[in-house]
């Protein structure tokens, strides 16, 4: 008997995969867009149903092809990856309507169907990494998402997009190689690839072959860190974000790095944590140190960028620093802060990049020097930019504040007040670069070149306004974000404590 709900974990991956195949056979961008839209809107329904089941009755395990784990591949969804699945699919659903006109404007007609094909493949990969309970299977999906991402970036109009894509190709391949070497070493020591099994056997293996395990974990952490753009393994990110088509930048910033962060959390807390004790290892301190550098260096660079996309790309590096900082401090509030910032940064950064996408759509430029007074020409777009920008700064009443609240609480509880001050003071750097944009956009006299410019059409404006509204909504009602994140953090730390 077939019960559709039981197959949700695999449906989440197969639907975009099949749709990608179909889109590959399509010739017209419009039909491919329709297909992508259908898939993007169906995914969150499935993901939310799945998360609701997980929250109500515990983790769901799905055996691919009916093979029992550890021999077969297991898809395993608990609160953590259920949450990430919802995030990725909801962001995908919100930004898809934006693609219609943005892609039509930025890409040549014969490439549009390919674009959607690659987009769907990328979505498949991200969903797969998140849903799978098999370490090697995660590598396969990582490759699917990465390869499609290289293509997506290379589709950018600017020829420099090719260089950026190539750079990411090299770095991404190194990252993936490191990851697979790490998995190989762990397999060598434990004889399993199933994550649950790994977690169980790692303790014993670590006693027998400590060097293999430590080396394996080092490769693994470095590989994943490259994917999530932890400083200094982040050189690929600014170029990739700056030259990719607008939709790709939005999608990558909001989801791709977040999925890599999920993988890091999964390994550090669910797998390594119980066996080796993550918080006591030097990894934690290293992550905190690198996060701090990321926050300050990237924010400082962002302050001096006049190219809006680049500025926001560097800002992403800094914001990823907050998330990894929460992971590094590794207590309940800080981990809650880190996980909730995954969501909060996804919302705010998607909103900011989308506002920039709207500006590109209307004016064709991302250079701040040419955008004086754009606020009076595109008031709704810039209002949304302002709100999401405040979210990025962490103004109270927006999502960013919630993240900072938990992170500062975590730092204070960890007995590191200096860290709390550092986190708090870093907001000031964000104020500087977002404030600069706002000052130019709202208060400078309008540039003559912007005479005929107005807000973009509704299909682009509406997703943007939804993200801006979410920035405020989830800053005030946090039961779906911080509430669930707090449960997840508790669960992860319980696992470590056991």
């Amino acid at each position, binding site marked *: 008997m077939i019960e559709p709900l039981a197959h949700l974990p695999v449906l989440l991956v197969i639907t975009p995969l099949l749709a990608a195949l179909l889109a590959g056979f399509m010739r017209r961008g419009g039909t491919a867009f329709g297909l992508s839209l259908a898939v993007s809107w169906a995914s969150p329904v499935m993901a939310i149903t799945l998360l609701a089941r997980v929250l109500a009755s515990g983790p769901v395990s799905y055996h691919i092809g009916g093979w029992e784990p550890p021999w077969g591949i297991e898809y395993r969804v608990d609160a953590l990856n259920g949450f990430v699945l919802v995030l990725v699919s909801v962001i995908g659903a919100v930004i898809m309507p934006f693609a219609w006109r943005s892609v039509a404007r930025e890409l040549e007609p014969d490439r549009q169907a390919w674009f959607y094909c690659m987009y769907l493949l990328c979505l498949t990969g991200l969903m797969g990494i998140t849903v799978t309970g098999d370490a090697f299977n995660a590598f396969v999906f990582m490759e699917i998402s990465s390869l499609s991402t290289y293509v997506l970036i290379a589709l950018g109009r600017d020829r420099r997009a090719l260089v950026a894509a190539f750079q990411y190709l090299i770095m991404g391949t190194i990252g993936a190689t490191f990851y697979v070497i790490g998995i190989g070493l762990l397999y060598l020591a434990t004889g399993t690839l199933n994550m649950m099994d790994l977690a169980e056997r790692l303790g014993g293996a670590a006693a027998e072959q400590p060097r293999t395990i430590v080396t394996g974990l080092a490769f693994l952490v470095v590989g994943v860190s490259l994917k999530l753009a932890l400083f200094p393994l982040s050189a690929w990110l600014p170029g990739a974000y700056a030259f990719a088509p607008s939709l790709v930048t939005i999608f990558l910033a909001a989801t791709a790095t977040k999925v890599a962060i999920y993988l890091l959390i999964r390994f550090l807390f669910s797998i390594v944590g119980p066996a080796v004790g993550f918080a006591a290892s030097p990894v934690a301190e290293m992550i905190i140190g690198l996060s701090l550098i990321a926050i300050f260096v990237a924010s400082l660079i962002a302050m001096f960028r006049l190219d809006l996309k680049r500025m926001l790309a560097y800002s992403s590096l800094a914001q990823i620093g907050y998330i990894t900082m929460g992971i590094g401090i590794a207590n309940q509030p800080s981990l809650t802060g880190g996980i909730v910032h995954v969501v909060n940064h996804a919302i705010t950064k998607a909103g900011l990049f989308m506002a920039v996408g709207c500006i590109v759509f209307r004016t064709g430029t991302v250079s701040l020097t040419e955008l004086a007074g754009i606020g009076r020409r595109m008031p709704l777009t810039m209002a949304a930019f302002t709100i999401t920008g*405040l979210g990025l700064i*962490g*103004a*109270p*009443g927006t999502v960013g504040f*919630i993240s*900072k*609240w*938990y992170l*500062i*609480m975590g730092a*204070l*509880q960890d007995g590191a*007040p200096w860290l*709390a*001050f550092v986190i*708090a*003071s870093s*907001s*000031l750097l964000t*104020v*500087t670069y977002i*404030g600069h944009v706002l*000052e130019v956009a*709202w*208060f*400078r*006299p309008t540039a003559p070149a912007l005479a005929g410019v107005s807000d973009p059409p509704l299909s682009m404006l509406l997703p943007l306004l939804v993200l801006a509204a979410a920035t405020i909504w989830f*800053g*005030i*009602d*946090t039961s779906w974000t*911080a*509430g669930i994140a707090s449960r997840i953090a508790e669960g992860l730390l319980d696992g470590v404590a056991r």
Partner: protein
Amino acid sequence: MSANALLIAALILPFVGSVIIALLARWPNPREAATLLTASLLFLAGLCLTGPVLAGARPALHLIQVAPGLAVAFAAEPLGMLFALVASGLWIVTSVYSIGYMRANREPRQGSYAVFFAVSLGSTIGAAFAANLFTLFLFYELLTMATYPLVTHKRDPAAFHAGRVYLLMLLGSSLILFLPAVVGIWLLAGTLDFTPGGIVAGKASVFQVTLLLALIVFGIGKAAVMPLHFWLPAAMVAPTPVSALLHAVAVVKTGVFCIVKITVMIFGIETLAATSQSGWLTWVAGATVIAASVVALRQDNLKRMLAYSTVSQLSYIVLGVAILAPISLVGAAMHIAGHAVSKITLFFAAGSIYTAHHLTEISELNGIGRRMPWTMGAFAIGALGMIGLPPTAGFLGKWFILSGAMQTANWLAVGVIVVSTMLNAGYFLPILYRAFFLPVPDGSQPGHEAEHVTGGEAPWLIVLSLVVTASATLGLFCFPTVPLALARLMMGAS
């Protein structure tokens, strides 16, 4: 209306008003009418709420629980009531003044100006009625952001520069120092609700209390305790009505209001006294009082001089807190009201002089008193209020603070008050002398002659407003019943 309904009305009126003003932005007269109506209704709601609060009612409104410990909630308690009354009452006068000033000076962007003004007032009222530290912080930050466009109103490089200083200092201090203090208090006390007597008693070590108090005093940059005062003189680039209401009343008073409220209802003055916090805070506040006065002595730009005088007067209020005697805290609360009416009068007068004669420097004011008798008469009353002489409102606050200092034998505070009174006299009296007794220079103000020297006084709306606030300065001395009752009620006396 019930007390709760009045509280809700007071909280949403300015924001509703700002939307209506935005919709009417193109039509000057309906727009100004909307501002005046909003301000009047707000003041009325405040007045109606005062009765129940004096009678002991504490209307409260729990809006939403954001996260554990973070609730947006409001309550009307005596100190907040007093502050809300002062801010909303003076908003009416300032609106009248603004109409005269902005039109006479042909300022651009009057529509957005009025909108942000209303939002600023709304934030102030929200802060005044905040029932916990998180809500207070929320509106504190909102106020910073809502006033930023007003500070940069002129949109020239100087205004942008001042705006950056303003934003970075206020947001910076609050995010780096105030926010960690809030988190720290939450971790220690397990609550952020304002509670008479405080919430940290017995839960924090002496070191923790000292650290948190220092974070609060310096983190609340709006209180302009040195060295975090630079934003205030910088903000003087704004149009004078903004300086008058926001940088003499709403913004800076929100700062000292926060400090008073947090010391009384988060730390509790017994806890602070038991951990002997009085000493260093007296030094910090005293140093600011004296240093700012000395700087004010040397200023030639009238508005900058007034700004430094504000810095000095704000630290009087912090000094009242530092003395940690109930009576000195009553004085601090009284001074919030007293300084507000006097300082707004002084700024109104400065704007009046600018509008009528385009004069901004003190050295140009020879004989101005005879050409603008109403303006300078009001200025004189405001100046007396600053020095703290009867019969002005400034005297009362100073008197109570001084009594507190005497009671607790805090001779440092007594010395600071005495010296600063002389300094205040030292920079206000020469202006009065210059204005009333020195002759008008011949052929003064080349270039402005044709346009502005024709009349003596500024437009009647401006004169009317400053006469009203000057009368309020005197009136508050003669009839201090309501503010005094509220201030005493704050300290738990009936």
